[in-house]
């Protein structure tokens, strides 16, 4: 793509972005002109998030600069990877499971329809939990990280039964404020993530629960055991 953003411009956008987060982003940035320079194969992706393996390691955010046509698009990629994938992994594994479960159960929520459709189109073969994390990251792309005195709550953790766009945006903004204050670090790693290891069956479990909820078993008439005659 000849009219893409230059690697140098993407670097400047990245440093401005982490500056806006008070430099509280313990990640490495790998910015190249093309996807091929990052991964050895051609690709149209804007960037990727490579999680740290443990809390002694650093995660990596990649950016393929030329795959973006504007500086704003680069910023959206950074928000997707950092405010989406990095931030969701600052939840504890239990919190992340609850947050992702709430998003998974929100597929029919009208305010999230646009995001679910976009994710379904790109990742229909992926487990539902991964799709839900992509919905979170998709919303993070356009979240205002400097809301003016706007009180925020981590609604993904407190209102798990009725997740909507406002819930997710509020949670992201809430956690961005914690991140800026230096109060967050990555707590969920690949070996404790819901997408892998012992939690990989989580999708099936949730789908089974959903199915049971939507297909209640017919009521069975119960009969009292016959009373034994009293002597």
């Amino acid at each position: 793509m000849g009219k893409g953003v230059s690697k140098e411009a993407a670097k400047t956008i990245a440093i401005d972005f982490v500056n806006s987060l008070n430099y509280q982003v313990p990640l490495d940035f790998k910015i190249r002109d093309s996807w091929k320079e990052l991964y050895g194969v051609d690709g149209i992706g804007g960037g990727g998030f490579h999680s740290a393996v443990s809390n002694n390691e650093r995660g990596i955010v990649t950016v393929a600069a030329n795959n973006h046509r504007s500086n704003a698009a680069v910023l959206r990629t950074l928000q997707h990877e950092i405010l989406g994938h990095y931030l969701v992994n600052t939840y504890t594994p239990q919190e992340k499971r609850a947050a992702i479960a709430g998003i998974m159960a929100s597929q029919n929520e009208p305010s999230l329809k646009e995001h679910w459709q976009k994710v379904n189109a790109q990742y229909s073969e992926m487990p539902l939990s991964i799709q839900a994390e992509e919905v979170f990251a998709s919303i993070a792309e356009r979240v205002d990280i400097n809301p003016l005195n706007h009180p925020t709550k981590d609604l993904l953790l407190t209102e798990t039964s009725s997740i909507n766009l406002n819930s997710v945006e509020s949670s992201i903004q809430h956690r961005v404020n914690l991140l800026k204050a230096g109060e967050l670090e990555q707590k969920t790693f690949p070996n404790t993530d819901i997408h892998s290891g012992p939690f990989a069956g989580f999708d099936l479990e949730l789908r089974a629960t959903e199915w049971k909820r939507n297909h209640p078993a017919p009521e069975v008439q119960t009969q009292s055991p016959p009373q034994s005659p009293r002597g």
Partner: protein
Amino acid sequence: MNSGQTTKPEAPRFLVTQEEFDKATPEETNKFDYVVDEDLMEPPKTYSLPEDVD
């Protein structure tokens, strides 16, 4: 890896090619905290797709 300078552990670093590292001015190295990394990575299973909306 060659590190440009020592920074706080929470600060971001930039993984660059040897050529970028060698060409960088001291100001640039200081600003971006460069580390040389020329390894190709395993492509991620998911990635962001830039939208042509601007």
